[in-house]
């Protein structure tokens, strides 16, 4: 499954990374071109390049990264045939189903093959995955894909409606993953396919709670135990740099200063008025007045900032005074380092930035971020809030042992668990009612 050599060879599948939102799979075919808005390339030029290389386009405009495929990258790049299962669910299901090298697994349906690739990677060549897809065209597409990816020794794909026809293997697999609209119809078939010489596991992946309830009833009826249900999500965080929050002490002393000046100004104005009325203007007044105006402006500025919280952060609205000129240089350093961050952050953004500014960065005194900035993270404002409910259960092999154990067992089971018994009978009949409604 996929190349493990250092360099790309003709016929290899590579993941062409252009931006975070633009990731494409490509089978490197010398003689063909790869054209995108990030440049036009001859695929022959990709051959011999180490995986993970940034490759500039021959015209000098644009570049792409050629990455080694992984199931995770494939999930981001794959052609969607259906809604797909994403990493948070895939990873959790893999662990809970105890899928590991050598495992034998059933998956239905194949869909776009996102889960298939991940499981194939994990079970390796000593394991096997039986994948079933009831949609013929999708099954054929998936089969072609698996062949192209060199997975045929690990994955057997069958076009089949497993709810109606069951699986192709019996007493064989360690775990079953059902991503079907009506998984309860496949539970009995799954039980048949699971091996009986050890604990085996099942997971049903359903977006709706109603589906979960019917699945749970079916699992109980089929003798599965340890039924549990989970929901798992990935919360992506955004990392940003923000200025160290200002201390209120500074704000407070600014305000106090302003108050003091306002009062001084008022008193001076009164004094001036009195003097004017008296007709005797003090000689030094003109000079002092200019200073007063500036103070007043400053006070004004501070109070305005105070009133408008969005401008409250330092540097957002700088008060421009003569004294501040000296600070300008310092501010510029901050500016440049911000710029460095933005350019290096993600090549997405980098692509939009002029070469000159890159030059400037390397020559500017950008080195480490001034201490006034801190790195913070917060969850993205909008995230995927629900994918599906994951219902798990296990099947424990049990043959009633001969001897004393049985009595105790039956005592406990029958005398102390009447309610479970009652609900096992109640739940399935309810489920049957529902299914008959659905059927009719």
């Amino acid at each position, binding site marked *: 499954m996929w190349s493990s050599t250092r360099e790309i060879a003709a016929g290899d599948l590579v993941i062409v990374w252009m931006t975070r939102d633009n990731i494409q799979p490509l089978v490197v075919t010398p003689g063909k071109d790869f054209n995108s808005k990030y440049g036009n390339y001859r695929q022959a030029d990709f051959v011999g390049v180490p995986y993970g290389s940034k490759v500039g386009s021959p015209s000098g405009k644009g570049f792409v990264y050629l990455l080694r495929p992984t199931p995770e990258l494939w999930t981001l790049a794959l052609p969607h045939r259906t809604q797909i299962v994403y990493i948070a669910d895939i990873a959790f299901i893999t662990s809970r189903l105890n899928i590991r090298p050598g495992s034998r697994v059933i998956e239905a349906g194949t869909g776009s093959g996102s889960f298939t690739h991940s499981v194939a990677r994990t079970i390796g060549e000593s394991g096997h995955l039986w994948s079933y897809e009831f949609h013929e065209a999708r099954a054929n597409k998936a089969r072609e894909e698996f062949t192209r990816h060199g997975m045929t020794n690990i994955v057997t794909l069958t076009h089949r409606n497993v709810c109606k026809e069951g699986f192709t293997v019996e007493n064989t697999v360690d775990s079953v993953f059902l991503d079907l609209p009506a998984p309860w119809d496949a539970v009995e078939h799954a039980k048949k396919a699971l091996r009986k010489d050890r604990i085996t596991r099942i997971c049903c992946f359903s977006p709706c709670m109603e589906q979960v309830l019917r699945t749970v009833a079916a699992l109980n009826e089929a003798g599965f135990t340890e039924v549990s249900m989970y929901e798992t999500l990935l919360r992506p965080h*955004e990392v940003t740099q923000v200025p160290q929050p200002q201390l209120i002490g500074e704000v407070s002393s600014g305000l106090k200063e302003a108050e003091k000046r306002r009062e001084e100004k008022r008193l001076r104005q009164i004094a001036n008025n009195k003097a004017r009325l008296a007709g005797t203007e003090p000689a030094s007044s003109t000079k002092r007045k200019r200073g007063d105006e500036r103070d007043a402006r400053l006070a004004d500025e501070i109070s305005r900032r105070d009133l408008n919280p969005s401008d409250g952060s330092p540097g957002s609205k700088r008060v421009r005074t003569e004294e501040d000129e000296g600070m300008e240089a310092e501010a510029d350093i901050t500016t440049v380092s911000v710029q460095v961050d933005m350019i290096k952050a993600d090549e997405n953004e980098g692509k939009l930035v002029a070469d000159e500014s890159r030059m400037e960065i390397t020559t500017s005194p950008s080195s480490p971020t001034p201490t006034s900035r801190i790195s*913070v993270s917060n969850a993205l404002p909008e995230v995927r809030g629900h994918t599906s409910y994951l219902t798990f259960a296990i099947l424990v092999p049990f043959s009633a042992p001969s001897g004393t154990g049985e009595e105790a067992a039956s005592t406990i089971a029958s005398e102390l668990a009447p309610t479970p018994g009652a609900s096992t009978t109640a739940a399935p009949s309810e489920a049957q009612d529902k299914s008959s409604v659905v059927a009719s």
Partner: protein
Amino acid sequence: MPPKTKHRKDTSSHQYDLRDVVIQAGDCVLVQLPSGDITGVKVDSNSTATIKKFGSFHTNELIGQKYGNAYEIQGKRLKVLPPRTLQEVEDTEATNEYINDGEFVQPLTITEIQALKEAGVHATDIIKKQIELHSSYSLKTEYSKEKYKKRKEVKYFRTFITIPPTLNNVCEYWFLKDQARIRDIRVDTLSQLLNLANVKPGGRYIVVDDASGLVVSAMLERMGGEGRIITIHDSESPPPYPVMTNMNFSPETISILSSLNWATADEEYTPILPPTEVETTDAKSERQKSRLNKRKAMTNHLFSTRKELFDGEFDGLILATQYDPYSIIEKYAQYLGGSANLVVHSPYPQILADLQTKLRNYPEWLSPSLTESWLRRYQVLPGRTHPLMNMSGSGGYLLHVIRVYDDPEASYTKLYRHRNKKTKADAGDSSTPVIEGSSTLSTPVVSLDEGSYHNEMQMTEDVKLSTTM
């Protein structure tokens, strides 16, 4: 120095494939009690194991048994119980609307119960008796009755279920037992780490595991004895990795693991080792010879591991460490191949946020992403399906980045198009208030991730303009 763990057992009877299927002599077996608590039991042959408050039993009773069975301790013997379907039913939080606090309902006293227990009366009979004598039992709702019984079972049953040492179970066990010792790594987060790092049979990874060996155990489990793991640790002797004890790995599975410490993993440093040749003409004693041979083997292993590390081309660097992750990456990223994955776990988002900010300054790191996973369990009972009251707060955070080979010659494509657009816009509408460079730049939050892609385009451009002007 192959024995990485203290725990070794006879290899002949222990097949990898069956380690989570059949209980072998020497295994550390996890058992689940009626309360849901999980505890570990060492199952050596011909010995006795004790479960707290439950009593003890002969371990031979468990050896050779399949995992997943329920047992009841009777004397020193174990009785196998059939699996109970809908066990979840018992795990309910039924309403206690009809239970009045403080009312006298149970004439059976603790001393009487104790006497019954001592007389050897079975737990089910004690519970039955309690129910019979309970004055308001019949008034209870079915849910309430069930809960009552469940509570009594938890109290009196001396049953347990053997739990296979799967990655999931061992991680859950440790997470419940001592979350801090595994650095808050919850099973969903661990699973994501494994996937993001593309851990697979045949892969080669550098690992720093200060999480009691949970990450190493998980990786060994997913590699099935094929590939290579080199861990770097902070002690003079190989790290014990206690989580590994619960996995009951076979020696073949562990054989792919070697460890160096922060000194021996330093390429600039030559480890100071005792001489392997002793210059003496006297006939060496057997003991001395074997000691020298051992020393020699250790030295050789150390140097070959070092060489392997320094030769590089690893597929991934995985960190779950108490140390500064950047200082590790700075030193060890050079041993990664192209397109290798770097995955860092931390219980603290601040550490990873800081790391991500640092990595941004280097073009060899592509697309950092910081994620936290969230996991909610539901009670699924007919008519009573709801999320559990309590859920784990966090399984920690993961930072994932892909290592790439930079090409400083490669330039940005959109440059020209973008510049033209900008010029046009400027020329076309000069009345539009041009955003002042200073005001844009001093916007407190400089957003850098995909979520605010468009803002950045705009902002990046403004930055550019303001600095070139």
